[in-house]
């Protein structure tokens, strides 16, 4: 859907691709993208800095799935619990997306992070602890095989196995219907915005009072 100046918003029903497992609970957004890489006025070029301090000790590469050739080109990231906690920096999902990640499957996600992913059309899909563990092991063993993340049926499948997944209702609706560009959605309601604002005792739109 489009409106004046609004972009075409693609629907996201499925993400299929090879996967990369990044294990560990409580991986915060400072780990995903350290603050020093936020010193820029655009998101360009952030992909190379994803998980940077886990991937490099100074110049020396460390063992990390994002450094592992086997997982190069992966588009599905498989993580554990409370992924993306901490800072609200959208730089975190921006870095992952620019590295090539189009969907994230995990045990649980921090709320602001999941919202930021949705703003980029990147689904955050949850599975049980057992299923995430099984999926991570499967990916380790089958780095070249496809993982299919289906937002409509709420399943994550590999080979002949389908894991029952959960997608937040609003997120599913937004992705499947192509409604995840909230600027476009909300601009359609300009008149009602004015009415709501004027009904608030602390707002005086005419006086432009704070």
């Amino acid at each position: 859907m489009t409106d004046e100046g609004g972009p075409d918003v693609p629907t996201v029903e499925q993400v299929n691709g090879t996967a990369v497992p990044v294990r560990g609970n409580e991986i915060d957004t400072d780990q995903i993208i350290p603050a020093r890489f936020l010193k820029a006025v655009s998101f360009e070029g952030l992909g190379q800095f994803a998980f940077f301090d886990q991937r490099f000790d100074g110049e020396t590469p460390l063992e990390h799935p994002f450094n592992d050739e086997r997982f190069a080109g992966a588009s599905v990231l498989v993580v554990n619990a409370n992924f993306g906690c901490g800072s609200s920096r959208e730089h975190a999902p921006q870095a992952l997306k620019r590295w090539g990640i189009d969907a994230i499957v995990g045990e649980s996600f921090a709320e602001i992070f999941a919202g930021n992913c949705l703003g980029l059309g990147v689904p955050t899909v949850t599975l049980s602890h057992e299923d995430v563990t099984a999926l991570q092991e499967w990916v380790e063993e089958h780095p070249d095989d496809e993982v299919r993340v289906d937002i409509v049926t709420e399943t994550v499948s590999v080979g002949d196995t389908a894991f029952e997944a959960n997608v937040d209702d609003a997120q599913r609706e937004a992705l499947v219907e192509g409604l995840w560009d909230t600027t476009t959605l909300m601009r359609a309601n300009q008149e009602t915005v004015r009415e709501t604002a004027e009904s608030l005792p602390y707002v005086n739109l005419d006086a432009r009072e704070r």
Partner: protein
Amino acid sequence: MSERTLYDKVRERHTVRELPTGQDQLFVGLHLIHEVTSPQAFGMLDERGFEVAHPERTHATVDHIVPTANQSRPFEDEQAETMMAALEANVERAGIEFSSPDSGDQGIVHVIGPEQGLTQPGMTVVCGDSHTSTHGAFGALAFGIGTSQIRDVLATGCVAMSRQQVRQISVTGELGPGVTAKDVILAIIRELGTDGGVGYVYEYAGEAIESLGMEGRMSICNMSIEGGARAGYVNPDETTFEWLRETDAFRDDPERFERLKPYWESVRSDPDASYDDVVEIDGSALEPMVTWGTTPGQGVGITEPVPDPESLPEGRRVVAEQAQQHMRVTPGETMAGYEIDVAFLGSCTNARLVDLRAAAAVLEGRTVHPDVRGLAVPGSQRVKAAAERAGLADVFEEAGFEWRGAGCSMCLGMNEDQLVGDEACASSSNRNFVGRQGSHDGRTVLMSPPMVAAAAVTGHVTDVRELAEVSQ
């Protein structure tokens, strides 16, 4: 209609309509912006050819990258200068008020909003910063957003938000000596977990909360996000109103104050409000808290032993083991005696006048340990000026602390204030994540301002209550 919480009331008053996704489109009463998360949003706005819909409801400051030593322009750090210049250009073009360093009003976004009376009860407040929950201390519905959402707010004056559940956290009793708001929130996060609040707004209530001043309430609401809750609030009361009366927004306009007060009172949770969950914590049983690990949920009382990872719920064990390795702490021992290299007093959690006063009270007549570097970083230029007028700056300097300019500073090390190598830092900030303070090997121990002061004096983590006894 009764039985409603503050969250219900404020959300309903600000709902423009339900979006087809089921989310609510909420009108934003106050949009705070800063230099790190807003420039990309202005860029997106330009791409679509949109103007800022409500510049009069938007307010800017510079905090994350601002130097706290020499703030003269151009900044020495070229990247910082670029970001500052971008912010200046954006606010100038859109007609957004800017608390710039020249104004004397600059400071951390979550310090200046409340200080200037921009933050008011019953408002929706958003900012591209997870610690926006701070403003909930005033009975506002306040939460952090990402940059694409900043674009939404700039373009429409609104934000899309899923409905939350409400958990009331009642802290009963009276806090003991040496126990502060910071200890309360660290105890809450330990109890409920760093993800316990996902999907919830936290309502902080009970005698121990109500008896806190606004600064203490802000410290607590500030760290809601460390417990996974995107927003936290305290119902507004006389303490709130007294603070507001003295701010720029109302000092010279008592009529406006009286006009808005009934609204502020009306948004309080009803006495019979229904909550999705209620948790009670005995405030009188709390002691000063310190963290031993690398998440804010990994805290203990200062006399309690660091837990054995095996004793923790399964999902927390590996994280605990890794944290203990990083921090070099031993289960079974208390954190008292843990040597520190740096003492950092600052951040949006604990850099207000009350915080500095509490730390100065400990430092008075004492000196910083020779192996410790002490940094005192006021939350705003106004806090700094007030602290200087009150003689607190002298106390810090005489004790051996560096007295610096206002900004986020060593909370996240985006300016020159960073840990080096594996330095350990007693910090009044909010996050002890690995690498957070600018060095990947750095070690952060979170605690209250008086506890930071005590550690600065002895050179190791210290029970401030014992330090007080020694001196008496």
